Structure formats: C-alpha cells, structure tokens
C-alpha cells in the first residue's frame, strides 16, 4: 500500500515545458506567484487562468492531475472562503443572527480561493514537468551566490538528492517490516488513534536502526568514490540556458507586468 505514494510527482515527457531549463521554470513560477499576489484585478486573474490553461494543454499533462493536487487543500480553501466572506466589513447583502455577508466579503473570498488554486496549480505544473534531480540542480545553481556568505548550498542540494534516492528504498523497507510484524500478529488497522500510534513503534524502531546503518555505509561508499564536498566538483549534465529559456523568461516578465497592470491597461483601452 505504501508503494502507491509517488513523491515529487514527475511525469516524464518531451513537451516545451519539459524541455525548458529547470532554472528558467523555477524563476518563472516565482514570477507568476509574485504577480498573483500583487495583482488585485479581475482582468489580471483572467490572464493568469488563461495562461495556466495553455501551459497545461501544451504540457500534455491531464487536467485531472492538477485537480488531484488541489484535493488535499479543499478544507483550507473552504475555511479561507468562509472566513473572508463573513469577516470583511462593507456593504451588507444578507444577515442572519450575528453573521453578515458583505459584497466586499464575497469578492475577497473569491480572490483568495482563486489565488490559492492558481498558486498550487502553477507549482504542481513545475514539479509535474521537472524531475526532482533537475529541480535540485536548479536550486543549487540559483542559490550559488549564497555560498559567498557561507550558506552550505551544495550540502543542502546533496542531502536533497540522497533523500530522493532513498525514499523508495525506505518505503520498500517499511513495507517489509510491516509484513514481518503482521506475520507475528501485529495489528495496524483496528483500535483508536493511540492504539494505532503504539502499533507504529515496532515499525519505526527497526526502520530508524536500518536507516542509520545505511547512512553509515553510504557515507563510506561516497568517500571511497572520492567525495570531498562541493569544491572542485564538476557535473555530468551541466545545466545550459539556451535562447529558448531566455525567451521564456522574457515572456514571463512581460506577462507579469501585464497581470499587475491589467486593470489600468483595460481602462485605457476601453
């Protein structure tokens, strides 16, 4: 059952979005999110929705996957919506008992929900079209200047890579330990929360012991393969920004300005 978890969900493909440099994609998403938060206009959000829909289309990723990424957020979305609806002061449209719904409240609620949905959809598009390793590389390269002020950027990226590498191994191991405990009569399904938590102890203890042993062996193996930190290290696949990537960044810059000044533009044009 644990095998079904797909972490860092990545759907390999050959679309334009897949082929863009991960750094360009990462920066684009940051720009997109920033403009989402700056913009307050209906037209701006309209543009964002259109753009995202176009991205999803050309990426070849099923819109269902995007909906799926939103699923865990439904409760938060409802909560945000309701809070904003009732607690924004303004022109009262309806009231019952101590609650009142205001026009401004409805607008803010709609904006908030739309904003979160767009935010999640955009970041999912990034992880769906970029392999975790490429993403880690991109983060390492983008944060490179921080090395000057002694931020351990390389170590952080290496940790991410190794974590990604060992997630499937540890999941498999958890599965094995669970089967072993079940075979000895352990019960993980029935009982209250406390019982269930208690049943996890005999899984977690051997899992941790084995993880530490693995870490130890891996460290030795890495040293045997001449690992000595990020200094002087080269890469097999160096990230290269092509004209296409710069074009995409330029496009995103223009797009952000459009989103932010959408209202003003529309009023000038109409």
């Amino acid at each position, binding site marked *: 059952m644990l095998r079904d978890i797909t972490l860092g969900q990545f759907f390999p493909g050959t679309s334009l979005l897949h082929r863009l440099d991960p750094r360009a994609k990462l920066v684009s998403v940051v720009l997109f999110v920033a403009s989402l938060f700056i913009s307050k206009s209906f037209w701006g959000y309209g543009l964002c929705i259109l753009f995202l829909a176009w991205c999803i289309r050309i990426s070849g990723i099923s819109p269902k996957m995007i909906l799926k990424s939103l699923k865990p957020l439904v409760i938060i979305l409802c909560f945000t919506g309701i809070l904003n609806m009732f607690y924004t002061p303004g022109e009262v449209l309806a009231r019952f008992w101590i609650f009142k719904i205001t026009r401004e409240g409805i607008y803010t609620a709609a904006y908030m929900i739309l904003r979160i949905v767009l935010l999640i959809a955009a970041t999912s598009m990034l992880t769906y079209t970029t392999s975790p390793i490429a993403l880690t590389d991109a983060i390492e390269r983008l944060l490179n200047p921080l090395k000057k002020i002694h931020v351990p950027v390389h170590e952080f990226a290496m940790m991410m890579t190794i974590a*990604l590498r060992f997630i499937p191994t540890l999941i498999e191991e958890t599965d094995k330990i669970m089967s072993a405990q079940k075979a000895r009569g352990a019960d993980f399904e029935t009982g209250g929360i406390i019982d269930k938590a208690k049943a996890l102890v005999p899984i977690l203890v051997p899992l941790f012991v084995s993880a530490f042993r693995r870490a130890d062996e891996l460290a030795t193996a890495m040293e045997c393969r001449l690992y000595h930190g990020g200094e002087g290290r080269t890469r097999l696949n160096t990230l290269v920004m092509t004209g296409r990537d710069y074009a995409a960044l330029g496009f995103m810059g223009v797009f952000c300005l459009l989103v932010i000044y959408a209202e003003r533009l529309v009023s000038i044009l109409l």
Partner: protein
Amino acid sequence: MEARAILSAEGLTFRYPTEEGHEEHAALDAVNIAVEKGEFVAVLGHNGSGKSTFAKHLNAILLPTGGAVYIDNMDTRDENLLLAIRETCGMVFQNPDNQIVATVVEEDVAFAPENMGIAPAEIRERVDRCLEIVGMSDFKRHAPHLLSGGQKQRIAIAGVLAMEPSILVMDEPTAMLDPSGRREVMHTIGQLNREKGITVVLITHHMDEAAQAGRVIVMSDGKVAMEGTPEAVFARVDEIRDLALLPPQTVDLLHRLNKAGYDLPLDTLSVEACADVLETFLRQ
C-alpha cells in the same frame, strides 16, 4: 628501495578502539600480504576473521595501528595521498543499495569522476564506457531502485570503475544476490581482470567464487592461515575444515573417497574435472 607489489600489507596490525579496561585482541595481527599487478586474489575466512577489516585498510578507511599498507607505493597513513590512494584502489561493498548515490543510473556512475573534477565531455565518455563494460548500457536512464540485485551491483562496480582504478577490492559483492545475480557479477569481475588487467581482491564466502581466482588467501583470527593456488589450498581439506570453512563439494567428494582407501588427485575444482577424474578412475 626494492620494488614493492602494487598492493602490499607489511606487518599490518589493527585493534578496534574499545572502552577503557577492555583488552581487545587484534582484528588483524601482523598480516603480510602482497598482491602483484594484474593478479586475481580471493580472500576467504570464517565470520570475524578480519577480512572486512583488511579490506578497509586498502583504501585508508581504517589506518593501521601497527605496520603499514602501501598501495602502488603510497603509504595509506599519508593524508595528502588519501584521494590518490582511493582513486587507485576502488572499493565495492556488499549491499548495492547503500552504495548508489543518484536516482538515475548514469548519474550514479558519474559520481566519482564528478568528484575528481573531470570535464563533462570526458565524464560522459567514462560513464558510457564503464556501463558498456558491465553490460548495463541499456539501463542508462533507469532508476536504480527498479533494477535487480545483480544489475544494481554491476552499476556499483561501474561507478567504481569510472575512477579508472588499477585495483578493485570487493567485500562480499555477491552475498546479497541470487544465483543468477552472482553469476552476472562474477562474470563481470573475471572479465575485468582478464581483459582490462585490473588487479582484483575478492573477499567471499563462496568456495566456487574463490576457485576462479589465481590465488587464494585464507584468514583466521586476524592472521593469514593458508595461501596458494585454489587447487593447492583446497586440496588441504582437513586444514580447511579446521578453519571452519567448507571445501568445494568436488574436492570434498574425492577426499572422502581417498579416506575410504583410494588415491585420487584433489586438485580438481570444476565439476567437469572431477567427473573426468572419476571416469578415468572407474575405467581402471
């Protein structure tokens, strides 16, 4: 200075550090082993006889408490030579899962050359060449955790080969593999030794694997107990038994016959050779 073998342990002694008051016996006790360039040496020995401890001295994971180890004339105690020693003497361990660093096969093989600071174009060349040697070229872009044990171990070997070491030390590389995985890995090791001239030190519990080597060293309680060609070593059946090891089945069979009063040669390691001996014997 007289010429040293490419791998040379001279009076090598090692005690694991223990809590105070404990008088620890030596895990390695004045071991003298020399391996010449291009040799294929198998190291046997019962559990706890010091095989892994010995292996860890060969690329300075452990440093001798007495005596010295020289790899291609480099003293492992010299810290400045650490990277050069590890580059010369590659090490493969038992569990392939705990040696693979990256999430894509080719990136894992590239790990060592990346650490050496080699230019990307040459890394690419080395990765392709090493995957070719271990016969895993078709799996370049695969995720290692989806491969079989034997395939994973071959990736681990390729990852070490990418340093272009002249010595390959392997600590029970087949212990976690099924029979077909073991065959794959042993085939690869033999090929590396014969065709690429790589010096191989193979630590193993399997007599049939040791039989493929040019020389066998049997360790016991941190000392070298026996040494010689596989044929010569395995023929000393009683001594092998005393060292808590099982001789190969072929030798064991002939040995039993000899005990029953016959006089058969014991230097037959393959099943075919054993069958030949029996055939000529029965025809007489």
